[in-house]
């Protein structure tokens, strides 16, 4: 349930676009929360700043001292703000990492992750938005909720979903035993012993923590995988980018060397954000601008997580292609045979023996083979790799990728921790039950509310109750 007296935060700019990313925080503690991790070189505190001013400084993780980003922070005090509450907007540099880390600091500092459309909802409920806009507010809430639900659902794949259900069942079971002890103490029922209760709480907590940590391991899912599209000029790299994005992001011409800079955009494959970089074609060139472009392409190959090496099947397989393959030989790569619909007999490429790279035939122009390509990229990213450290997957291969899921699981583990501590201090069962219930509530945020009725059902199915 959400209330209007707490402070909410969210990333306000869409992912994968633009040179800046904004984290917005609204509510009575917005400014004090931000002050916990904002440092101005002049030692200025946001709390002292005038309303509607912009302050320059750094976001620093107060725990580790790690400098996260150089930012501009807008301070807007109630009531002259979008939500009519105190609002802080932190303008980070683009790129997902600093923005997400900044958001995490807000959440750790006491803000709650905003519900879909919640800023607008608050604006309305606080009387900021005109009545005639109420319907629009509803549409925003609905659209954003549907979007968020879809996204969360996408990310809650079978194995994770099953895992969460198992955790919920186990938590319900512990609650049922404790509640049965309280409510049916007159009945002769065999509930867990205190040691058994403590033990099951501890193992559940440990496993929850491990699952929560898998979010950190799922770096690729969270921060995205960078993929460089490379190849000799005019093999259709930009067309491939456009085909994958289903929009005209890069300028495509017949002329080799059209793309001179690295173009970045973001694509979502089964929840895996793929940051694709289209690069200039790699070839000998005398054009200065193009030379710079080629240099950047080579650099892109080095820095990218994976490489999409594109060949042109309508032309003969030549030295330039060989060089491309040579350059990606130490990378994780997919070899893409483009224009496979108009294959030339002289295209004599055969999969090189040195690399187990998957090879995919596509036609960027016609859109053929794109799904196969996406699947190949996805498998390549999630396949285990000796070089990847720390390991990306939790032991059972279940991975959390959604920040809401992670927050809920973490909260559940923390509540369980309190319950365990109370247990060790011999606190009465009804006190322990409070934290246990909180833990269940947090898990319920992921898969639907757990009610007291669920616990009673468990009690009645498990124990013979009733004089």
């Amino acid at each position, binding site marked *: 349930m959400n209330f209007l007296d707490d402070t909410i935060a969210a990333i306000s700019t869409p992912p994968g676009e633009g040179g800046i990313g904004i984290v917005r925080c609204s509510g009575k503690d917005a400014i004090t929360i931000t002050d916990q991790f904002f440092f101005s070189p002049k030692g200025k505190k946001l709390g002292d700043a005038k309303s509607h001013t912009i302050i320059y400084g750094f976001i620093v993780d107060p725990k580790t001292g790690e400098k996260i980003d150089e930012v501009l922070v807008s301070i807007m005090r109630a009531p002259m703000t979008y939500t009519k509450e105190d609002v802080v907007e932190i303008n980070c540099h683009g790129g997902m990492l600093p923005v997400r880390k900044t958001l995490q600091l807000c959440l750790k500092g006491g803000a709650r992750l905003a519900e879909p459309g919640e800023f607008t*909802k608050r604006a309305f*409920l606080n*009387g900021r938005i005109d009545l005639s806009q109420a319907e629009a507010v509803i549409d925003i809430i609905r659209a954003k909720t549907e979007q968020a639900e879809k996204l969360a659902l996408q990310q809650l794949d079978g194995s994770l979903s099953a895992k969460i259900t198992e955790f919920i069942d186990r938590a319900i079971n512990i609650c049922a035993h404790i509640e049965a002890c309280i409510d049916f103490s007159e009945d*002769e029922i065999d509930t867990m012993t205190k040691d058994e209760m403590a033990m099951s709480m501890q193992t559940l907590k440990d496993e929850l923590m491990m699952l929560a940590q898998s979010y950190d391991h799922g770096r690729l899912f969270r921060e995205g995988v960078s993929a460089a599209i490379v190849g000799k000029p005019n093999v259709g790299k930009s067309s491939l980018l456009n085909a994958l994005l289903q929009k005209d992001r890069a300028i495509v011409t017949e002329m080799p060397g059209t793309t001179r800079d690295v173009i970045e955009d973001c694509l979502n494959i089964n929840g895996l954000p793929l940051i694709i970089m289209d690069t200039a074609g790699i070839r000998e060139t005398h054009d200065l601008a193009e030379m710079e472009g080629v240099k950047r392409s080579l650099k892109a190959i080095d820095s990218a997580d994976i490489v999409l090496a594109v060949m042109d099947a309508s032309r003969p397989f030549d030295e330039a292609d060989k060089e491309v393959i040579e350059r990606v030989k130490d990378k994780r790569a997919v070899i893409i045979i483009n224009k496979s619909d108009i294959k030339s007999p002289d295209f004599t490429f055969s999969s090189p023996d040195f690399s187990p790279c998957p090879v995919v035939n596509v036609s960027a122009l016609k859109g053929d083979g794109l799904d196969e390509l996406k699947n190949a990229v996805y498998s390549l990213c999630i396949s285990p790799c000796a070089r990847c450290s720390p390991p990306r997957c939790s032991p059972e291969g279940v991975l959390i990728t959604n920040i809401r899921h992670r927050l809920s699981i973490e909260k559940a583990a923390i509540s369980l921790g309190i319950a365990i501590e109370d247990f060790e201090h011999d606190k009465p069962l*009804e006190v322990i039950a*409070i934290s246990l219930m909180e833990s269940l509530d947090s898990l319920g945020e992921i898969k639907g509310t757990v009610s007291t009725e669920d616990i*009673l059902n468990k009690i009645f199915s498990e124990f013979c109750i009733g*004089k």
Partner: protein
Amino acid sequence: MHKEQDYDVIVIGAGHAGCEASLAAARLGLDTCIFTINIDTIAQLSCNPAIGGLAKGHLVREIDALGGEMAKVTDKSGIQFRMLNLSKGPAVWSLRAQADRVLYRLLMRQSLEGQKNLDIKQGMVERVIVEGGRVRGVIASHGVFYGAKVIIITTGTFLKGLMHIGLESFQAGRAGEFPSIGLSDCLKELGLKMGRLKTGTPPRIDSRTIDFSKTTPQWGDDPPQPFSYSTEKITNPQLPCYITYTNKKTHEIILKNLDRSPLYSGKIKGIGPRYCPSIEDKVVRFADKERHQVFLEPEGLETVEYYANGISTSLPYDVQVSMVRSIEGLEEAEIMRPAYAIEYDFVYPTQLRHSLEVKGIDGLFLAGQINGTSGYEEASAQGLLAGINAALKLKGREPLFLGREEAYIGVLIDDLVTKGTSEPYRMFTSRAEYRLLLRHDNADLRLMPKGYETGLVPEDAYERFIRKKSLLTNEIGRLKKIRVKPVPVVNEALISAGTSAITEDVALEKILKRPQIGYSFIKQVSPSPECLTPEIEALVEINVKYEGYIQKQMEMAEKLKKLEIRKIPHDFDFKSVPGLSREIIEKLCEVRPETIGQAGRIPGVTPAAVAILMVAVNKKVSKGQSVKGSKSMIL
């Protein structure tokens, strides 16, 4: 049609709900009449002769704090009092009493008969007359009409009651009593959605044929603690209960005769309570359990009848006899009254407001088992609230609303009107979110001011309460202020109590927070200048020891309250809200929540739907207000 008389309030049914309802209405000055099918069974304890128990004991205390009658009558008729759950924390301690069944009903009848403004009439009400959406009166036996501004129906298991003993069944409201047939049809005609439930009782046994030496006696507390805040002392002689067990042979007899149980032959369609299963259910569902407890409970001081709690059954009489005689101590037992199951009609309670008034029928209130609950205490609590709210309505005052953080009664009513029920609803402490706030020891602190304001708590009781409250606050204040020095006397006492010594001045409050320390330690080290009762001492201890948790729950409750004050207008059109799914609209239309908070508690209503609803309601409310020219500001 003969018109007899006009009343302000007519109560139909004189069980536990009816008694509280009629007393409350009459005490609040309304001209009240209570109808019962049989005056001799007013306030009959038709199931086990016990009042209270876990969570139910809390309800009894709350009824008392609000000015109800149940606690007082129980104290006067109680023949055993036991505080349950003492091994747990104080929030879930709960009082239970065995009552003398005959004494209980006579004393309650006395209360009714001694009440000003209250007429008692024997007769069957056949119809409730509703005109233009509001009640006009009732038609009782012989076609006599009685006018009423408000009608409270508290008919328990009597609506189309159908009793089962084995495969035999017959219409009855209770063993040996007439059912009410016409009224149920009348309610259906009025558009109320109704369902069917089932409950049951065990056989009653002649104690002269019980070999108690083969059983284990269970005595009550000595001295017994009363339910009512106004009872000084329990004066009845106290009796034990006896515990025995079923065994393999008992279970064999039951299993062999399952085909003769109406529960298993499919004859009984009503849904029974899972927390109070019949013995055949227990034996079938928990086949590996070798024995089940049987409590032999005395029915009273002046009778040999014993209630065999734990073997409620619908099996035929001959099976009951052999089953009972297979139990240790009951080898020679004679059954005085057979066990039976009963099915009855109930009204889906989501059709009610929190005031217990039926939505859409002005002046019609329902309370007790008719709303799908089970238990004397649940019934009394609803009866009391219905009586109070009927009176408040006629006086033009706002209904008495109790929040979930305020009372088990609040939890009970909110659950019923918000979630409804599909089995007989019984209170459990686990149903309350704020269990640490809803303790049996602080029911008066929570509710007596409301009871006084309503007009049911008399002046002298309220004065006593105020004195108690100030003693309590003063003493807690004193413990915060007074610091003890690390002198040898104190430290020796601390160490002998099993805790560590202090090295600097420490507030008494801090010391009392230590798990090993009780209030008796404070008394020894720094006695209060006032003379405190053990009750107040216990309250001080609980408040100090659990302060942190209590505080936390209070904060949480405070937050939820903010959603509770966001009212949804009675005439709000849920169908007109864009962006809600059809299922959610259906649920909202069925329950018609009165607040945003209640809407959020309806099963299946998502947080997103609540957010949308909040916006839509706000729009409607703002519009309404802007017509009057006032600017909207709901926060």
